[in-house]
């Protein structure tokens, strides 16, 4: 069975505090902004993937630990909706995994790496919100965040 198929049933876990502090804030069709009052991401996996990429870019890996590991969703959700983003997450996990290319046959390792970097990304986003509660209130802030990234990293 291919890695992608094996990953499909695996669940990506994240801390409950990040569900409340970030994902619920930015994801969901019922939300706020630009013209119509709506949130920037329509689904949770988008916010999760965004956080994971921020973690990877900033090389911030934080194990989830045992407490508060409440929520999870299947990797297949990203694969079915995000297309290339699911592949990119696996490749990013490959770039960081201590197991090197061997992680390509180790779905648990891939999931673990993605989870820990997503957790790191959540922490970065949370600290930005702590500094300025309205940081991501304007939809333009998401594009600004992209342009602030160093493309050479």
């Amino acid at each position, binding site marked *: 069975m291919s890695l992608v198929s094996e990953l499909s049933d695996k669940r990506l876990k994240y801390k409950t505090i990040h569900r409340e502090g970030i994902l619920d804030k930015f994801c969901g069709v019922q939300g706020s902004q630009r013209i119509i009052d709506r949130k920037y991401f329509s689904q949770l996996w988008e916010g999760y993937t965004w956080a994971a990429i921020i973690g990877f870019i900033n090389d911030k890996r934080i194990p989830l630990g045992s407490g508060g590991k409440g929520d999870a969703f299947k990797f297949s959700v990203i694969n079915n909706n995000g297309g290339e983003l699911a592949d990119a997450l696996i490749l990013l996990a490959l770039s960081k995994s201590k197991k090197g290319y061997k992680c*390509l046959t180790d779905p648990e390792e891939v999931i673990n790496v993605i989870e820990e970097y997503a957790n790191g990304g959540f922490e970065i986003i949370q600290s930005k919100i702590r500094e300025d509660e309205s940081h991501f209130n304007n939809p333009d802030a998401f594009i600004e965040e*992209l342009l602030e990234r160093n493309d050479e990293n």
Partner: protein
Amino acid sequence: MLIKSIKLKNFQCYYGDKHKINFTEGLNIITGSIASGKSKLFDAFYWVLNDMIFVTGKEWVSTKGLGISLVNDKAKYESQSVDDLIETSVEMVVNTTAGRNSKPIEYTIRREYLISRRSMKDCFDSSTWTTSTSTLTVEYVNQKNSNHEIAQGQEAKEIIENLFPSKISPYIWFQGEALDKLIDFDNKGTLRKAIDYISYVPLYKTMNNIITTVDSKISKSARKQIGKLSGNVKLYNELSRQIEEKNNSIKNNKQLLEDKSITLGERKDQMEEVESALSALAEFPKLSEEKIEINNDLININDELERLDIKERKRFSSLWMLYGTKKSLQTAADRLIEFEDHRQSLISKEYELPEDVPGDVYINKMLKNELCMICDRPAEKDSEAYHNIKAKLNRKIKPEYLTPENEQINTEVLTFKAKLGTLSRNYDSIKSEIIAHKKKLNDLYEERKIFKDKLDSVNDEIDKLYTKRGIDVSEGAKTHRNKHGEYVTLNEVVRNLNRKIETYRASLRDAEMQIAKLESEQSKIQRVNTDVNVVEEEIAKYTKYLANHISDIEEKEYNKLIGHIESDANINFEKITSVNRTIDGKIKIDRETFRVLNVNEEGRELQNYNTGHYTLMKMCIINAIISLTNNYKDESYPFITDAPTSNLDDKATFAYLESISETFVQSIVITKDISEDEIEEIKQKKYISSLFFLKIKNDTGNEKMNRKEAYSTITPIKN
């Protein structure tokens, strides 16, 4: 006269008693952003003198009408118990300039308003407070006896009338928004009143009245004396009686003519108002259509923004969010290559291992034939040789690169290499896509702002139709019917008045002709004694001459003054407009209608001026009137104005301020046209003598100001 200072205590947004401004000669500027207390400061000047302030939408409102809204909110909020007394006051100190026979006098004008707490209910509710009327005092040192005097009530009001004559004060106290209400140049009486005040015209008018009366009496007396010397006394006296009768009729008709002319003027003013209202109603559909068009444009822009928004979110969640992962993806690629290299090394190793000869196929053949084909000896079934050969079966070791794990990794590596290739190609376009998207967004935001501003200005125009011309556009048809009815009636009244005036004029001409005829008949009657000189007859010749000439002088003086106002106004107008060249032409006051016009060299009216230009023309006339008043009356009045230039651009604003500084000994201009970051630059301008900046203290930045905490402060920047 100079305003030395103004001091405010708990007046509207000014909390406490620490707000004092010391003014200097020259141009004093008070600036600050929106809602920083500028108009309230202007109100303070007006309130201390007149016990009322101008409220947009309500016009002039007295202290009684203002009630506790005059008193600072924070002061009200801080009151702790019943019977607490709060004092609101404004104190203005003015200095008169020394005249030929008088020394300068300093007057301290103070108005005070007290409220006391009735209950501990909501402090912002008027029923919580007992109010009173305001009290006015004027303190000064009497020049005759050097006594310190305090005038109150009527006496104080008279001093103020003397200091700031009500006929000229509308020109001195000038509120930008209220310009049209304060000084209506379309009304013939407006300029006439100002001219009457600043010139000798009323003097000539009085002289004319006196001389006409004297002339009539002297002529009557002359006729009486001549009659006595007449050869036909009876006929002469009869003619004199008829002349007297005609003179009385002329006098009556002149009075009627004057009365009807005044009424005609009033009715014409009313008609102009109705006409203006009707034209406002005609303007409404145009503005309404414009509003619909702008709203449609805004809808289109918002639709486009919505499309871009959807596209952005889609791209963000399918590709853009990967921006910045270039290096990590490169590491992933390196690891894929690392595996390929490893596999390659395993394959190479395979070439060094030829030990699996002979292979299983050959061995099976040997077992089947029970013969060792290598040494060509028999190997019978179940013999030792047979078992030895059989043991060689399945000897082949699978190469390491073909282990299931390596095979699986290899499959994944090949898959992800292909995926990485596609990803990299797409990745390269992310930045340009984001930048192009952002540009489109910004262009649309910019466009939306322009249309929103346009919409605001159309809404303002519509609002103006209501507030300035008193038209309720929402009841368009009904209002139109009413106004049209009023117009028809007024039109009829005006036509009747004109007819009557014509009749009186005709009667006057007729009576004058008849008098001439009667006088000629009288002169034909021979006198009995031609040697006797009648003194009254001689005097009457001069009084008649004087009566005619003084009337001419009055007219000439009047025209001369309008000419002066026009040319003074044009000097300023040219100076101000030369900085931005947005308008050509000159100011002209139409002698018939007294309308202020913008004309070309040939005197033909130009049509391309806007509200800003028209306001500027009016302001130049105001400057000219005050400046001429100073010349004629040998008295200088300070010029104080709030938001005079809100319709002008920056260049014209500063040119206007410079021209004010040249025209007036002292001027106080309250304006929002100078922003906080321009202050340092403005401070350096030589023509500005003093500069003050108003700011809100404890402003939370919320849309709604905290009434309990926020208040205005005054900071001197240059003084």
